[in-house]
């Protein structure tokens, strides 16, 4: 629940620390890069569709990475795609978050063994904040992943830098 | 110094000169067109300034209006011509292309 909700329910006097306010704003308005990769993307679409409604959490897809805050890697990342994903991620303005959705982007999933063209985990090119397991994860699971991410953001501090340039843990 | 006719005339003269300068120095047809627009604007300032400070009633403004209409017609035609020219001689500018991108 958002910070302000708590204040309402607990009837406190609103002494919102700016940090809390900012974190609250960030976590309740996570705009997502409108972008899907594979089967998981279909579940991601289902999550934004009527039954699960991503919009309830303030998540709306923005077509351009320049205006988005979170990128959901929803599906198998191949080598051909990994480079593009990295670039897309780079092109998002800070602060930015990554949700890795599904086995494939977690570690290559069903393709980890023989997948000669599958990147074994998107965390080899970009830093991942939350790993959502499942193949595909149920929409609820994705929502839960999002809640986890919100939890993480809530505990973030403005003072300490969130993340600077990331070098893939490849070499 | 109170702003009177002279000021407007000076502004218009300067604008006019800039327009002339643009026409003379630029080879690009569209730039020339821009210069012409500057000149027309300068003349309009004159028209209106005289209509404000002179005793011609609103004729100056009316003329300014006509000038604007003419300018529009001229711009349309001129651009059509430019387009046409470029369509016919697509490669006419090839030698001066490239570099200097900032």
């Amino acid at each position: 629940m958002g910070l302000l909700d708590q204040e309402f329910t607990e009837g406190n006097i609103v002494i919102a620390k700016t940090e809390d306010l900012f974190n609250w704003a960030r976590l309740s308005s996570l705009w997502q890069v409108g972008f899907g990769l594979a089967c998981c993307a279909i579940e991601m679409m289902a999550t934004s569709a009527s039954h699960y409604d991503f919009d309830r959490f303030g998540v709306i897809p923005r077509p351009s990475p320049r205006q988005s805050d979170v990128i959901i890697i929803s599906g198998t990342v191949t080598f051909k795609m990994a480079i593009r994903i990295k670039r897309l991620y780079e092109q998002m303005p800070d602060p930015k978050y990554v949700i890795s959705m599904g086995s494939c982007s977690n570690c290559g999933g069903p393709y980890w063994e023989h997948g000669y063209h599958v990147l074994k985990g998107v965390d080899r090119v970009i830093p991942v904040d939350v790993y959502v397991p499942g193949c595909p994860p149920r929409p609820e699971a994705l929502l839960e992943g999002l809640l986890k991410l919100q939890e993480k953001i809530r505990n973030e501090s403005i003072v300490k830098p969130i993340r600077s340039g990331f070098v893939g843990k490849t070499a | 110094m109170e702003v009177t006719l002279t000021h407007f005339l000076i502004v218009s003269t300067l604008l006019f000169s800039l327009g002339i300068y643009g026409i003379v120095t630029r080879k690009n047809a569209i730039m020339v067109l821009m210069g012409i627009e500057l000149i027309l604007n300068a003349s309009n300032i004159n028209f209106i300034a005289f209509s404000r400070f002179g005793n011609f009633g609103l004729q100056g403004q009316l003329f300014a209006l006509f000038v604007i209409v003419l300018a529009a017609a001229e711009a349309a035609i001129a651009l059509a011509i430019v387009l046409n020219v470029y369509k016919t001689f697509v490669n006419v500018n090839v030698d001066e292309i490239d570099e200097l991108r900032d």
Partner: protein
Amino acid sequence: MKTAEEIFNQLKEKFGSSIIELRTDKPVESFIVINPLEIDKICSFLHDENDLLFDSLMNLSGVDDANGTKEKDEKGLETIKGGTLSVYYHIESTKLKHKLTLKTSTPREKPEVVSVTEVWKGADWHEREAYDMYGIVFLNHPDLRRILMPYDWEFGYPLRKDYKNPEFYQGMKVPY
């Protein structure tokens, strides 16, 4: 409707030695084995002949027969020398409703087959895929590039049985 046998005879009559054999011994599906360098002519005949009219290419697949000699290198990885790569063509006639399977084999060291894109445009990408996956070169193909793998993939043809994964691709680790 024509059976494979009839078509085989008809082809044999016309193309002679380019038509190698009709295989019916393996269960399930019979196929005609033909010469890889004549395939375009044969296919165009199959496509145009009035009582054949094979107007559609259902499938074209490259296959690694893995029938050469297998050698193990010091790391225990297999390499295959010799033998053949094959291409299977599954064609059908939507008008006469008959189907046919063609097979052509080409040596592994220099796999060359003539392209059939002139006959069925749909063969284009199938052939590119076969090239991408097996390295079978389709002569006369308009645009033979890799299709599924990155264009700069220089580590061989992944569906060959003796394919080895590279360690890195553009700085990304390939194995798990």
